[in-house]
């Protein structure tokens, strides 16, 4: 009885926390906007108009949510496996680069083949870049967080070189690739102008549900959760946490690489340029945190974050509010989410101690970050 009530309360907290976080974020945004001398009401109206107000803007918001969600799913599977890597920006760039290369070669291929080929190329590229992190961790014992941070910086420079060198389009020396062939561009909903709403939004429910099923109903998903929950116990019970961790990192790289392909082939500009990654790699992590690592909840969170980006640009265009407002809010959202989980934890712990005297390890047991 008591346990049931506690469960209901925990579920309520799960739903209420993100809402409370958003409310605080909106207040903070209003305060910031006010501080630089813009009326919050005007800003709110401009924001709404720029994100959900017109079919084109709404389509853009949804389409831009796709890469964010894909990265979030990648983060979810790696954290479930107990691995924390942040190499998504690098993997997006790597996936985007490989997809660009393949796409530029696919000029004469019909769309039915070319489009999946670019997506596959993105996945392969992202997974290959992630494979470096996975190898360094599993074989050389390099902490995945550190190697992935450094690999992000390397990927940026390599991409910078590629679009000024081998991949540069012939047009007027701009640092960008040639324009992608029409047949490779991912299809968009016809009724909405400017290819604003790409069909790749079906990836959102499909990938999220697939991930949920994989974690809950497959042996690999079980291994992932056991390895992440208690690496030692997993190893002693015959699971290979290293193999599981490597596969999880590769899958997350695949997700990020697919996000890279989506950014290019379903994005606003049909060519690869500097900075096409646009902070999606780190913001995807924030999306997963806001959704508290729930793949389905991440769909909503991704749309929220996407609207912050799209709306931030609209605010800059209309009211001259710096577009980095979005970055401030996104950072604030993560900090608030972290603090709120603690608040929920403390409450849960208190109700728990009243029921059983034995202290319960609520924090997952993680191996100390022992090896470099």
């Amino acid at each position, binding site marked *: 009885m008591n346990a049931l009530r506690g469960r209901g309360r925990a579920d309520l907290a799960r739903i209420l926390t993100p809402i409370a976080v958003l409310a605080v974020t909106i207040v903070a945004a209003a305060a910031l906007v006010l501080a630089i001398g813009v009326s919050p009401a005007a800003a709110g109206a401009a924001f709404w108009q720029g994100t959900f107000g017109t079919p084109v803007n709404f389509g853009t918001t949804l389409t831009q949510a796709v890469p964010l969600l894909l990265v979030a799913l990648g983060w979810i599977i790696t954290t479930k496996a107990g691995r924390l890597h942040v190499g998504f920006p690098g993997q997006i760039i790597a996936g985007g680069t490989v997809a660009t290369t393949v796409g530029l070669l696919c000029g004469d291929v019909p769309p039915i083949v070319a489009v999946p080929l670019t997506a596959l190329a993105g996945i392969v590229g992202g997974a290959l870049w992630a494979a470096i992190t996975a190898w360094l961790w599993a074989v050389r014992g390099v902490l995945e967080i550190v190697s992935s941070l450094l690999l992000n910086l390397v990927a940026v420079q390599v991409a910078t070189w590629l679009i000024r060198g081998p991949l540069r389009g012939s047009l007027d020396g701009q640092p960008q690739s040639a324009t992608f062939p029409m047949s490779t561009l991912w299809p968009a909903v016809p009724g909405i102008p400017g290819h604003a709403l790409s069909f790749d939004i079906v990836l959102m429910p499909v990938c999220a549900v697939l991930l949920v099923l994989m974690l809950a109903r497959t042996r690999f998903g079980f291994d992932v959760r056991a390895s992440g929950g*208690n690496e030692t116990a997993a190893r*002693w019970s015959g699971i290979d946490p290293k193999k599981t961790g490597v596969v999880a990192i590769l899958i997350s790289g695949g997700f990020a690489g697919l996000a890279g392909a989506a950014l290019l082939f379903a994005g606003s500009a049909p060519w690869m340029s500097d900075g096409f990654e646009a902070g999606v790699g780190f913001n995807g992590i924030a999306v997963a945190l806001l959704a508290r690592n729930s793949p389905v909840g991440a769909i909503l969170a991704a749309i929220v974050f996407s609207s912050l980006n799209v709306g931030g640009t609209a605010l800059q265009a209309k009211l001259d509010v710096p577009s980095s407002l979005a970055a401030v809010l996104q950072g604030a959202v993560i900090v608030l989410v972290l603090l709120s989980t603690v608040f929920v934890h403390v409450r849960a712990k208190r109700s728990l101690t009243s029921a059983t*005297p034995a202290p319960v390890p609520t924090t997952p047991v993680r191996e100390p970050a022992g090896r470099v």
Partner: protein
Amino acid sequence: MTIHTDPDARVSLKAKRGAPALTLRAVTKRFGSFTANENVDLAVAWGEIHALLGENGAGKTTLMRIVTGLYQPDEGTLEIDGEAVHFRRPEQALRAGIGMVHQHFTLVPTLSEVENIAMRPSVFPWRNDLRETQRKADEVASATGLRITPDRLVEDASVSERQRIEIVKLLVRGASILIFDEPSAALTPDEWEDLAGLMKRLAADGHAIILISHKLSEVFSVADRFTVLRRGAVAGSGDLGDVSAEHLVSLMVGGAVDPRPPLEPSRPGAAVLEIEGLDVARENSSPSAPPALSGVGLTVRGGEIVGVAGVAGSGQRELVEAIVGVAAPLAGTVRVSGVAISAGHPQHFYDAGGALIPEDRHHVAIVGGMTLWENITMRMLRHAPLRRHGILDTAAAKRRARELMVEFDVRAASENTTIGRMSGGNQQKAVLARELSGDPTLLIAVQPVRGLDVRATDFVYRRLIEHRDRGGAVLLISMDLDEVIAMSDRVVVLAHGRMQGELPAATATRESVGALMTSAVAA
């Protein structure tokens, strides 16, 4: 009130002998609706060795945490020298002269011995107290005979040496009320004799000593008075000279205890576990250090329980790791039911019919964040029918888990309960359910009843014996000599990584097993 190691203070401590040192009056401590300590009175005098007895979960730990300032009592008072004291932080208890020798030593392995002793909050943190600490340690050495090796790293010290460092650490800080928590767990019988002598000397010097133990023989050999806790309350106290061991046991468990019937003679069958010439390196140490195991050979047959006796750190962990295949040995072979176990593939051990009840449930046996059914079926999920083409049949797995919960008396709201939230006894039963449900041919049990109460202990023992009687092989590894002798058909002694000999359990005694352990020290 501070006590210094200088001679004057020592004399004054001696002069106080017999006067009340530490007095607890009507101490009550609650956690939510659970009462850990209820109206506990405890009186310890200077110069006295006071035994604190009780089963696991009787409230000894909570009481000592109150005394050492980790918890604050909800009701009741603490007095030292008859004056009321209030500890809000451990630091205050230390300053008042209360020091505890923990069962799991509170030392930092990567610091040197003298640095460990110098570790303390300091008024001027930029000061370098090492020389001063060394001087005080020398004083303690001349007064008690306890010597340290100042510049050696603690990780290079043996278990009994670490215990010595712990005691010196407390004496250097001026502790005059010393609490020993199960101090003999990691000691050979000889080392225990040394410690007992030291405790008596310290008491003769005027120190007040509280000994927490469940080994009555040890309690009777050193302590003067006793207090028994049961379910958080005092069940009895008095002079040890006035009571019998049977009386103390009945106070601890609340009634007479039926002694377990002696084991039926075993009918050993074919060899199930064969270990030959096993060498295992010590973890995290230089190649020149002695190996954790050298030349270990052992055979366990079906239908018998073989007990491995040895103090903590004799190589038990490495032995289990090598048998299960978690760590790679330097040399030697391990076969389970004729199948050679290769390192890095614990799966082979389980496929060959092995099962393991590890000592450290939380780290090794369960995934605390996952549900009860997932933990129980963790291994079954690897095979058909619960797994087909990598897809799990969760409904069937839950059904199986429910059956096992009934069979092994695992109490939980449902199979969906998170296992980390269950009590230790129920977690252990869940592990037992998982390990015994696959009809293993070989069961390895490491300290299987540690931390369990009498009823749960009995349950586990009965299951082990049933398993043996059905023809299964059991390797029982324990640091508790009495447990090994009572539960085994054969006893092998492991000391300093070597097998020191074998005794039939029927004729083995603490003394004969202890002698085998000690012979290794001399060698």
